[in-house]
């Protein structure tokens, strides 16, 4: 079981951030800039999957028990033509629920995403300060020296176009960071959107888009 990590990173001046978020054309330019960063991403770097339940307990917003098995059952069910309401695979659709009618648990998906995001940031030698009370971000981390604050948002999916989702999430997060910068013009902030793609057999892709706001 493998996590394939892709990393995209780039700087952004605080003044440029303000201009980019000001209007629609600014955001269009920002979206293109983020896409360009993602096109230059580095990776994959492969890691063995950690104890996800440990990180779910540590970073998950909701309580889950074995989200990995929850999702594995979803993928397994999708391999068959259908299964009975009791969850038994069957080749006889008239008596069965069809795979297209089954949706994976959103809680399991979200929690796995948060767990792997927290795990990944720990690999970068960062420490979690909090899950913010206010809306706008999922996690606040700091670097080993306590000088850089990293504000992170997490998106998890088993669907396509993770990079499109990362761009949109990054714009929302940069709006939040833009307000933080107004409050706190001196401190350095990193804005980090982490996208986790959940694949069958408990393999994962982790995409990190990190903007260094200075």
């Amino acid at each position: 079981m493998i996590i394939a990590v892709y990393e995209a990173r780039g700087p952004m001046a605080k003044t440029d951030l303000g201009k980019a978020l000001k209007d629609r054309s600014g955001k269009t330019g920002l979206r293109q800039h983020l896409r360009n960063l993602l096109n230059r991403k580095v990776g994959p770097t492969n890691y063995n999957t950690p104890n996800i339940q440990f990180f779910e307990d540590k970073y998950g917003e909701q309580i889950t028990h074995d989200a990995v098995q929850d999702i594995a059952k979803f993928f397994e069910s999708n391999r068959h033509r259908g299964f009975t309401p009791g969850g038994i695979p069957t080749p006889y659709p008239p008596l069965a629920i069809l795979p297209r009618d089954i949706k994976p648990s959103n809680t399991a998906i979200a929690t796995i995403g948060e767990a792997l995001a927290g795990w990944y940031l720990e690999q970068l030698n960062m420490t979690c300060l909090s899950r913010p009370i206010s809306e706008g971000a999922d996690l606040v981390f700091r670097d080993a020296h306590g000088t850089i604050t990293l504000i992170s948002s997490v998106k998890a999916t088993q669907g396509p176009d993770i990079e499109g989702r990362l761009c949109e999430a990054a714009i929302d997060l940069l709006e939040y960071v833009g307000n933080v910068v107004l409050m706190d013009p001196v401190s350095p902030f990193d804005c980090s959107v982490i996208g986790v793609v959940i694949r069958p057999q408990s393999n994962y892709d982790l995409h990190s888009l990190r903007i260094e706001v200075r």
Partner: protein
Amino acid sequence: MLEKPDFEQTPYELKRLGNLGKALEGYAVEFATALDKKSQFLAEECFNQMLDIVLMRYMQQKQCFPNKQSLMTQAQHELEEVLSNVFDKTVAQRYVRATSSEYISDQMARCESMLFPRGRGKVRFSVDPSWLVSEEEAFSHPKQA
């Protein structure tokens, strides 16, 4: 269950493990340090966490308050006490802003809209403060002019 790590735990980990007293002290230190470094965002974030922990403790102790104002006043008093206790006299002067009633009042006023959102806004603290206020207050009608 979280496994206990073999290194000193952060306030975040202490809070997740349910060690609320130590977590509150940890965040108090982080709060004062952030103010010392003029990092307003981190200071507010740490203050939010401290208030969240105080509300969690009230919930654990099954405390009930007659009205919202008494809840806010008691919470402020507790936070002031934690902040003044966590620093000994040798460092207190450096963190005078973190321990000043005026500054803490300002922070509480900032938190009030998050604690009591208008309409059907979601309370993002771990404990909805309306759970801590007596039924009489929850169903009270506005006073006639």
